[in-house]
């Protein structure tokens, strides 16, 4: 089950560019349990387009997509209730302003579950649970979403999708605009959800440090193609990452610089600052 892309392409004609293919010949399999995947790529590489296919918000122009047993093609199939797919695969967009609309945080989080026929009482419970899960206490429930800070709005928008209890969670840049502490809180939260409930989580991000520290599997999009699908360590061991318009994590870059300038031979593949520090000390002792 899960999500499987078979030779999926998506194109559209726009006034400015004529026929434009956003993603080309994508073959990809995401199982519905336990996966923790980073989706990276330059702006315009097709990451968002790929994500929007995962909960059937858009349909492929060619190729087929299987989501939890349902086959999605470029034609709308009247037998399939596409809305059900949105319950199983939850997609959180980057800007909470496009999603928040209710008078209170509680009502806004309840919107999702209630669209899927959950009762009001049950939805209230889910709202409280998801809110606490993203690190906000009950005092937020009756507040107006638009009076919150950027980081708080982000968390409320994530809670809104968590409350729907999707099997697969896809998030578009959930940590952008947050301060370093906020980023860690959220990433630890997602890791925790993944490890305790077994839900598959796919996160689109530009932050290579987070990719290196939290993810085992990474998908790289480049000019609409899926050019890498494999282990994070293997990705950063490549010499030619610039061909993918990607940068290396900061620890690797700094250690490479030191090696180059001081003629050292340190193992640059350190994920955290403390690991890098230990490696430097080890190298100096020699």
């Amino acid at each position, binding site marked *: 089950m899960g999500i499987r892309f078979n030779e999926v392409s998506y194109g559209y004609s726009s006034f*400015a560019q004529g026929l434009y293919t956003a993603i080309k010949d994508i073959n990809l399999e995401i199982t519905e349990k336990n996966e923790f995947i980073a989706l990276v790529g*330059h*702006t315009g590489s097709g990451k968002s387009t790929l994500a929007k296919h995962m909960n059937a918000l858009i349909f492929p122009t060619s190729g087929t997509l299987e989501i939890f047993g349902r086959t999605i093609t470029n034609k709308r199939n009247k037998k399939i209730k596409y809305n059900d797919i949105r319950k199983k695969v939850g997609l959180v967009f980057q800007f909470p302003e496009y999603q928040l609309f209710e008078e209170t945080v509680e009502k806004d989080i309840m919107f999702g579950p209630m669209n899927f026929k959950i009762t009001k009482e049950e939805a209230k419970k889910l709202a409280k649970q998801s809110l606490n899960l993203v690190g906000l206490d009950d005092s937020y429930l009756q507040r107006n979403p638009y009076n919150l*800070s*950027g*980081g708080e709005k982000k968390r409320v928008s994530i809670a809104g999708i968590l409350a729907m209890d999707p099997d697969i969670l896809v998030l578009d840049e959930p940590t952008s*605009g947050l*301060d*370093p*502490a906020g980023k860690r809180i959220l990433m630890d939260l997602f890791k925790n959800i993944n490890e305790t409930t077994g839900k598959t989580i796919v996160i689109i991000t*530009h932050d290579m*440090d987070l990719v290196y520290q939290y993810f085992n599997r990474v998908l790289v999009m480049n000019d609409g193609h899926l050019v890498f699908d494999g282990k994070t360590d293997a990705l950063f061991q490549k010499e030619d990452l610039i061909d993918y*318009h990607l*940068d290396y994590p*900061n*620890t690797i870059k*700094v250690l490479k*610089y*030191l090696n180059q*300038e*001081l003629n050292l031979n340190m193992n640059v593949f350190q994920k955290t*600052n403390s690991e*890098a*520090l230990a490696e*430097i*000390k080890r190298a*100096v002792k020699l």
Partner: protein
Amino acid sequence: MSYIEIKNLTFSYNEKTNVLEDVNLEINKGEWIAVLGHNGSGKSTLAKTLVGLLEPQKGEISIDGLIMNDEFAYEIRKKIGIVFQNPDNQFVGVTVRDDIAFGMENLCVPREEMLEKISFYAEKVNMLKFLDSEPANLSGGQKQRVAIAGILAMQSDIIIFDEATSMLDPFSREELIKYIKTLHQDGLTIIMITHDINEALLADRILVMNKGKVYAFEDTEEIMKKKSIFTDSHLELPVSLDLANALTETQEYKEIREKLWEYALMK
């Protein structure tokens, strides 16, 4: 007298809490100042008082000898411009040309002069080919460059960037920073409010705001050596400086520390 002087500046939106409290600052002509601080520390408010969008309850701002008040606001705004965070919400014109012209139109610049300046400053920010383009067809980074051109066309020599890169993708961010560097080389005074520590490292001096007060205002290198400033402001040092600060100041680590600092200030 410094180019920009802020004395005892206090500002609040309601009567209760002060968003800015007794701020005293002096900024010299041609300096690049980075402004760091947690959300709500008063950075944006400070920027808005500098261009006269907000009127402080107490204190005084003077720019190039002119005091910011109703009488001189118009004159001062010719000297200082501000690029905001959302590229879309500051683009007034229907085309790039119209937008760059907007400020000059307000200053009643004659049409022929406007046309000259538009070509000149559009070229400077590499948007000459896009003069007839509409904002809907431009990227965030391009729109920010148009905003810069519009400010330069008003002959401003102080530009405030209020988190102008935070809504841009990494590539556009880098590009915009390159333009800002050339502006600084041309002698402009740059005040850059940012969350990005790497951007802050480019500055001559760093101002750290905390709860409406000036927490620290020193040379970049000095600030980077004080880890406490960063943790107090919910900020993180770049990896290279975190490592440099963690290595003891003994001889064995001297070369490495130097190289780490070199790396940090290199960008």
